[in-house]
């Protein structure tokens, strides 16, 4: 078993890029990552990649080069990027490969997702009655949480305010203008208690990471960023997930809790050891709940954390330093890898105006997706 290093990163800006297909944005990200690592596609021994709605990742060999490498497609909803990274991490850790790519991209139509009940093993009436809407789930999980642990709408607005402030400084972000707390609170209500500015939107983009074994990283002189843990977990009994016509009265933990514990155990670190975190923020409330599910605070403490600015760039634990999904939008296949990209930037100290001011030695990222899958990643330098 070898340690795994991230020796190159590349991103295609998130948002809307009318002139490029999703696949082209994926290829753009791979070329950028190769350039960052000073490597060539012909040196890649494998690739793991995926998109939810923008085509088959393995067809990228037509654009990148017919080198005969194994190119494995992954598809795990919003956790697709995490799953691609898990594949690449495991391939190198096994000792079978020295150098390869984990990548993801996507391009979604405007507006909320419109899933087909049959694809999810659900009856047609569930969709016909207007129950099959992802934003309702986020709102209802949040409403229950706010009621149980005393979280206010102002705290939700503070999460979004921070996201847009950070996004303004991230060249790859989509929404790059700050938005005032009052504007966030008073914007159009989408699914109570969440307003328009508290939700991310489906968007476009691509991310690629070049992974290397310890031997290869040393040979390349690029041992700065080490991948200490990648844990992917599906839902346990009793978790509350999107598209659930009924749930058990015996409640269980979220898949994020399970993935997070596994990642910390693998890394030999705890939440208190982490210097910066990127957490799935499909909406403001998701970031709030995921702060506790990932072990960074107790349920209910978020109210004080946000009031005191502890998750801002200069706080004790900066969260979503590039504005997260709220500012970048969510191209499903690329989103989890964007978080890792941002963490590498922070570990390298290359964040410019969004760089966390104190020394960053460890970074955590967490992606969550339907129908209940979470991936947690720990990087150290």
């Amino acid at each position, binding site marked *: 078993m070898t340690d795994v290093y991230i020796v190159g990163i590349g991103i295609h800006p998130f948002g809307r890029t009318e002139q490029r297909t999703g696949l082209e944005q994926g290829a753009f990200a791979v070329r950028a990552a190769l350039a960052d690592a000073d490597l060539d596609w012909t040196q890649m021994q494998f690739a793991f990649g995926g998109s939810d709605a923008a085509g088959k990742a393995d067809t990228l060999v037509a654009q990148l080069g017919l080198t005969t490498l194994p190119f494995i497609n992954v598809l795990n909803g919003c956790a697709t990027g995490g799953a691609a990274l898990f594949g690449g991490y495991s391939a190198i850790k096994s000792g079978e490969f020295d150098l390869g790519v984990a990548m993801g991209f996507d391009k979604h139509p405007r507006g*909320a997702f*419109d899933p087909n009940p049959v694809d999810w093993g659900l009856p047609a009436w569930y*969709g016909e009655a207007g129950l099959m809407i992802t934003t309702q789930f986020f709102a209802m999980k949040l409403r229950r949480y706010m009621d149980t642990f005393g979280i206010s709408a102002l705290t939700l607005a503070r999460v979004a305010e921070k996201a847009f402030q950070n996004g303004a400084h991230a060249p790859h972000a989509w929404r790059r203008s700050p938005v005032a707390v009052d504007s966030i609170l008073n914007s159009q*209500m989408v699914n109570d208690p969440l307003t328009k500015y508290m939700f991310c939107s489906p968007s476009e983009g691509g991310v690629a990471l070049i992974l290397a074994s310890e031997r290869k990283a040393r040979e390349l002189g690029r041992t700065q960023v080490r991948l200490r843990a990648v844990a992917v977990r599906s839902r346990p009994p009793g978790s509350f997930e999107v598209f659930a016509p009924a749930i*058990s009265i015996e409640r269980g933990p979220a898949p994020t809790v399970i993935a997070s514990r596994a990642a910390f155990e693998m890394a030999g670190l705890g939440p208190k050891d982490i210097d910066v975190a990127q957490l799935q923020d499909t909406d403001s409330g998701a970031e709030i709940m995921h702060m506790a599910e990932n072990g960074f605070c107790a349920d209910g403490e978020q109210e004080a954390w946000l009031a005191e600015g502890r998750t801002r760039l200069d706080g004790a634990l900066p969260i979503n330093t590039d504005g997260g999904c709220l500012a970048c939008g969510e191209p499903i296949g690329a989103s989890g890898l964007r978080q890792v990209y941002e963490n590498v930037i922070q570990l390298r100290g290359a964040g410019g105006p969004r760089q966390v001011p104190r020394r960053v030695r460890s970074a955590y990222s967490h992606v969550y997706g339907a129908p209940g899958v979470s991936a947690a990643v720990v990087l150290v330098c």
Partner: protein
Amino acid sequence: MLAAVNERPVAANLFKTAPELRLIAARNRKTGQLVFPSPGESESFDAVELPARGVLWSYTVQRFAPKSPPYRSDTPFTPFAVGYVELPGALIVEARLVDVPFDQLRVGLPVELTTFILRSDETGEILMFAFRPQTAALS
């Protein structure tokens, strides 16, 4: 509540309207676990009627028109309430919430099973289950 002849449930084996309105779930014979909607009676499952009364576990208001498909309606969109209802000793079931002003929605609101007309076709009106506040539950 008796269904008129020209009304029918949106799906078979989902709820019954006589002699009393009840949601139909299934109990796994091996694990004892309740499942809703029912996967249909078989060697593995027994049909179980769920309690008709419970309390609101969580809720939201659908403020934008859902995409069609899968959403189907023959009336212009107006915002509607959705919630999860905890049916004591059974399950927490997702449903539309009717006959309730949005500002009266709260976790813990006592609610009861009812139906509403989801849409109509040439053979009659199609019923969907929902929950509404129990009498005197609203302030």
